[in-house]
């Protein structure tokens, strides 16, 4: 049966139509969903298309940068966002896919089969970003790592918030496949604010993860207590375990020398 297609014209209408999300498939940029649809792997009952809902744009609001869920990844590359987020946006897909791919779709991406997704997650966790979402029980705002590790189904992401002074210093290091779409093998993002360190890793499992053991000890080897790397078409879990401590070391060094 052809899906029912809903095209809200405002954020409020989007939240109302979404309700508790039951039977709804949210279409943002479509860069993950359209191939799924074309191959018949998904058959949406009701499709909620967000392109006209006014959820796109980056604005600064007091001490907070607010990034609408529909903001294209391309707008983060040279937009008014912290360096750490820009640098990871630069490595998402290619020029054209970044024009369609959204930040909301990036943090809501379901686990990939061949490669890991959600490359922006590590930067967002390190920057202490928060996710504002609607759904059952109304709106809520939570830390991005809580959003990622919780049950994301039933949530409509509206906005990402980042404090303007989220990072006094930041460091990044990563390993990617040498390929036009540079699929991530492992990405590390670290930010320091008021002497407090936030460390996160993406690209090694279904979602980005905050690395509290490393934050506490500053010992790169402890990253293997925080994450449990997977095997996929891009790299083996063993390889990821080997390089992760090295990448954490590199990102920590960059933080120190910045």
């Amino acid at each position, binding site marked *: 049966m052809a899906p029912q*297609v809903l095209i809200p014209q405002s954020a409020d209408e989007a939240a109302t139509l979404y309700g508790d999300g039951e039977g709804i498939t949210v*279409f943002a940029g479509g860069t993950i969903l359209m191939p799924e649809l*074309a191959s018949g792997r998904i058959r949406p009952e009701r499709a909620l298309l967000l*392109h006209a809902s006014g959820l796109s744009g980056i604005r600064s609001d007091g001490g907070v940068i607010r990034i609408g869920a529909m903001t294209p990844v391309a707008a983060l590359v040279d937009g008014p966002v912290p360096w750490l987020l820009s640098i990871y946006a630069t490595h998402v897909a290619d*020029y054209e896919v970044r024009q369609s791919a959204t930040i909301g779709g990036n943090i809501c991406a379901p686990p990939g089969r061949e490669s890991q997704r959600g490359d922006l997650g590590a930067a967002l966790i390190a920057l202490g970003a928060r996710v504002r979402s609607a759904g059952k029980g109304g709106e809520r705002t939570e830390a991005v790592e809580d959003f990622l590790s919780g049950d994301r189904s039933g949530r409509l992401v509206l906005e990402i918030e980042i404090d303007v002074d989220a990072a006094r210093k930041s460091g990044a290091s990563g390993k990617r496949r040498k390929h036009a779409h540079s699929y991530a093998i492992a990405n590390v993002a670290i930010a320091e604010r008021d002497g407090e360190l936030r460390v996160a890793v993406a690209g090694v499992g279904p979602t980005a993860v905050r690395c509290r053991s490393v934050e506490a000890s500053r010992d790169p080897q402890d990253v293997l207590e925080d994450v449990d790397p997977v095997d996929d078409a891009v790299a083996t879990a063993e390889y990821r375990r080997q390089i992760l401590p090295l990448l954490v070391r590199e990102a920590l060094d960059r933080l120190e020398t910045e």
Partner: protein
Amino acid sequence: MRLTVNGIESEISSPPLTPLLHVLRDELDVTSPKAGCQQGGCGTCTVLVDGEPRRSCLTPVAAVDGASITTLEGVGEPERLSPVQAAFYEKYAAQCGFCTPGMIMAATALIDRKGGPVERDEVLEALGGHYCRCTGYVKIVDAVMAASRGEVGDVQDLPVSEAGEPSVEVHGSPA
């Protein structure tokens, strides 16, 4: 829904989630955008949506309702090639030609964006998501740089097919 494709406005009757690629090819008979991977990974389906290059296989038609679409058919004509097309011809930047529609659309948009000569690394960045299985890319990159510098002559001797020549149609062929 409505689309203006290469200057011609049409009412669209495909279902709203149909990829723009299939609306162009199957409903409007505009067949230069090719159905390659249909997963966003190869670039041959690239068209301009309000001047910006987009993967038509990843774009639900409802999301571009009202937009102006440019495909290779809207870039030049057999007798009057655009600078990028002429450069591809002169520099032998196409072999089988399957990737060429996407390459030319992305290159055309890049040169429009920069408004002048483009550097090699800018071409690599703009065309990085486009796969070519024939040329080895060198001639493509050279062609785009030459076009951006206006280093293309008048292509006079293009073998334009005669009207009335039998056209070969293979059912189900992606071409």
